[in-house]
């Protein structure tokens, strides 16, 4: 089988004299969705992306065998990935004083890092300050969607109305009924694989061809059912049937080995923003793309107090430019969007644009990770080899705490991601004791018998967990950097203890031999699910945005990424980011048409 590689229509020339209908800052899940929706309404849009446009086919080389690469996929000497130990014992900026040529976040410590070293940022150019935080950033067209884990989950009213259930924090200014039609639109436009389970706390999507389970995963699914818990095939943001309306993406062919590197899919069966959203938007003729444009400030008209455009720095040359728009749509990622709002100080907005509440940067939340379990399905030892990773993903165990019961030790919940069976590299080999023929046979015999899972728990949104601008440290472009004031709290610690215990119980109940129960909580930031630095709400004193992600203070500024989320829930956020952005951009286009912006 082969694929025709299609190049998209040339983008219109960037025109910095004109006033676009909208300037979109960022090109990831949120920015891409904004570009798609706004251009579909006929608006002329300029998208600013800080990084380059990379040819993903030549970057990812998804089907290159390890032995076809001179270092078996590893980065060249002098390129260093930060370790858990470095994140914990040192303080940011982690690359300061390093003797390595380039320093990357921890995801580059996985196998196959040579394929993603141009996708994630070099920490030397992008320092940050404050408390320990494992911040993973990708500056290129499409941002982190180029390597995301692609677990695509919906939130429910258990999340949107969590305060009404347990009294903590704030409810979202929307309910599931408001966003459900937009989840449907995202499902149909981008494609998602999964299995219907009819769970009120994890609503089903409009699934394409279902994802599958390995034998040990079926064992666990059947066992969990007796505990009134669910194991469902990974809800993958992957098109398994193909998308007739999108010529840039292929359906998934279960090629396997998807997890051997930081991520990425060079046939674009897995969603990424460029092929899923941006190239089709360019084909409308309404989208202009300016890459290498590092946004530095949202410009304000002093007479009206409204935004008039964006000041940016050319990432390569360092020269300054201005782009102008009737509306500014901020989609630079949760932390970068907060940074940009705080950087945009003016006489009308002395604390940063849209920050009269003082909440920008605050209520910062995410998912806590680390606790998990590894077990052995003994009935599979020594069985003939099967292909177990030739599918879009492995499995997900949705939350089960604080649904109808009330846990005495913590509020909110966690879910597990896991997998079983053979992979291209037998991870267990290094830890299999001994050497010689016995060792070799054991590695071979046990390869299909391992199963493991790890938790993702909700970190409570707290005002005192926040980011601001460091008073002295600047990045390579002379722009003040983020300073973290962020720590897990007591609720997260207690939740993590329960996560490890529950994981062990579930594996024991399924008859797996327990090999390891991990209780180590990974450094803040590890989940790459940062959320909530410019939250939505109906009260302008305690929130930054209204229910349409529109600034309470400045009507023509919208912040459409994860920064708008009121809580983290425990479900992976990307699908919700895109559904919300779609809803808000429909509203934006309508309001602009009515002359209300």
């Amino acid at each position, binding site marked *: *089988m082969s694929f025709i590689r299609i190049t998209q229509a040339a983008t219109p020339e960037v025109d910095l004299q004109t006033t676009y209908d909208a300037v979109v800052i960022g090109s990831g899940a949120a920015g891409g969705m904004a570009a798609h929706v706004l251009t579909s309404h006929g608006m002329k849009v300029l998208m600013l992306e800080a990084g380059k446009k990379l040819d993903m086919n030549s970057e990812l080389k998804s*089907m290159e*065998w*390890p*032995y076809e690469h*001179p*270092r*078996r*996929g590893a980065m*060249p*000497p*002098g390129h*260093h990935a930060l370790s858990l130990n470095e994140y914990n014992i040192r303080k940011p900026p982690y690359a300061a004083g390093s003797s*390595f040529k380039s320093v990357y976040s921890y995801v580059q410590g996985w196998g196959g890092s040579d394929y993603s070293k141009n996708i994630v940022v070099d920490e030397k150019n992008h320092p940050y300050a404050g408390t320990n935080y494992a911040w993973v950033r990708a500056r290129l067209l499409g941002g982190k969607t180029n390597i995301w884990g692609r677990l695509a989950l919906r939130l429910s009213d258990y999340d949107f109305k969590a305060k009404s259930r347990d009294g903590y924090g704030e409810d979202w200014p929307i309910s599931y009924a408001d966003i459900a039609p937009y989840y449907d639109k995202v499902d149909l436009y981008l494609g998602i694989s999964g*299995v*219907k389970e009819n769970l009120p706390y994890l609503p089903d999507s409009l699934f394409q*061809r*279902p*994802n*599958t*389970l*390995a*034998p040990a*995963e*079926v064992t666990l*699914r059947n066992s969990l059912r007796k505990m009134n818990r669910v194991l469902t*095939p990974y809800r993958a943001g992957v098109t398994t049937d193909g998308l007739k309306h999108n010529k840039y993406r292929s359906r*998934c*062919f*279960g*090629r*396997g*080995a998807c997890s051997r590197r930081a991520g990425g899919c060079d046939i674009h069966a897995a969603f990424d923003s460029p092929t899923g959203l941006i190239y089709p938007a360019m084909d409308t003729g309404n989208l202009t793309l300016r890459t290498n444009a590092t946004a530095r400030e949202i410009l304000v008209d002093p007479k009206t107090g409204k935004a008039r455009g964006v000041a940016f720095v050319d990432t390569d040359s360092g020269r300054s430019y201005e782009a102008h728009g009737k509306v500014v749509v901020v989609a630079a990622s949760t932390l970068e969007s907060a940074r940009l709002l705080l950087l945009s100080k003016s006489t009308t907005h002395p604390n940063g644009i849209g920050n009269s509440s003082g909440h920008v940067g605050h209520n910062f939340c995410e998912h806590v990770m680390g606790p998990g379990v590894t077990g052995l399905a003994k009935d599979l030892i020594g069985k*003939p*080899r*099967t*292909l*177990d*990773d*030739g*599918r*879009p993903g492995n499995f997900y165990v949705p939350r089960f705490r604080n649904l109808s019961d009330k846990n005495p030790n913590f509020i909110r919940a966690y879910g597990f991601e896991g997998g079983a*069976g*053979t992979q*291209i*590299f*037998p991870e267990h*080999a*290094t830890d299999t*004791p*001994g*050497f*010689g*023929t016995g*060792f*070799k*046979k054991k*590695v*071979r015999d046990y*390869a299909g018998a391992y199963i493991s899972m790890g938790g993702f728990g909700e970190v409570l949104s707290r005002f005192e967990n926040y980011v601001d601008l460091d008073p002295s440290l600047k990045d390579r472009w002379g722009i003040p950097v983020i300073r973290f004031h962020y720590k897990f709290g007591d609720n997260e610690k207690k939740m993590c203890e329960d996560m490890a215990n529950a994981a062990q119980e579930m594996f024991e109940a399924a008859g797996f031999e327990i090999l390891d129960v991990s209780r180590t909580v990974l450094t803040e930031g590890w989940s790459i699910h940062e959320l909530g630095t410019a939250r939505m709400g109906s009260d302008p004193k305690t929130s930054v945005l209204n229910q349409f992600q529109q600034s309470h203070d400045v009507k023509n500024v919208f912040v459409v990424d994860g920064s708008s989320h009121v809580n983290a829930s425990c479900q992976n956020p990307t699908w919700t980011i895109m559904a919300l952005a779609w809803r808000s951009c429909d509203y934006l286009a309508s309001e602009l048409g009515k002359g209300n912006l």
Partner: protein
Amino acid sequence: MSDHDNDLSRREAIKLGAAATVAASLGVGDAAAQVRVGGFFTEAEFALLDELSEMIIPTDDHSPGARAAKVAAFIDARLAEAWEQKDRTDWRSGLALVDRLSQEAHKLPFMKASPEQRLAVLTRMAQNESNPQKPEEKFFKELKSRVVYAYYTSEIGIKQEMEYKGNTYQSEFAGIDVSQQ
């Protein structure tokens, strides 16, 4: 999963299994000592590393071992270009330590010792693998870790030893469809 799907995957499994058998019979796993190009180690060090790697993952009746998979050459090439000089000095002293242990126990350098004597030295190094304390125990852990990585990322390791069936286009996903259950 329908019966039809079961049939299909079984047929594919048989086909792929046959391909692996053919590769093995073509002698891809020639066990002769390898000729080296460039690298960091001296000839003697390289021969020692080659022997140690083959002892850790030997040729057996299932597939060729570390020597055929050119594990020593991969480790040697990586060390030659390693960013930190310490990696090279640690490996050089680690290999010297193997000879020293052999001298102490058997009055012979490792490569002159008998297979039983070599096994005794490596067995001593491999004790406390889960919690290495002595220099030779720590070196064994490093040695094994690199040998394992090099072997199981080699073509022999992936295709012949582990019979990995992925990294190929498939009409159906691997695994069990539970959507109707």
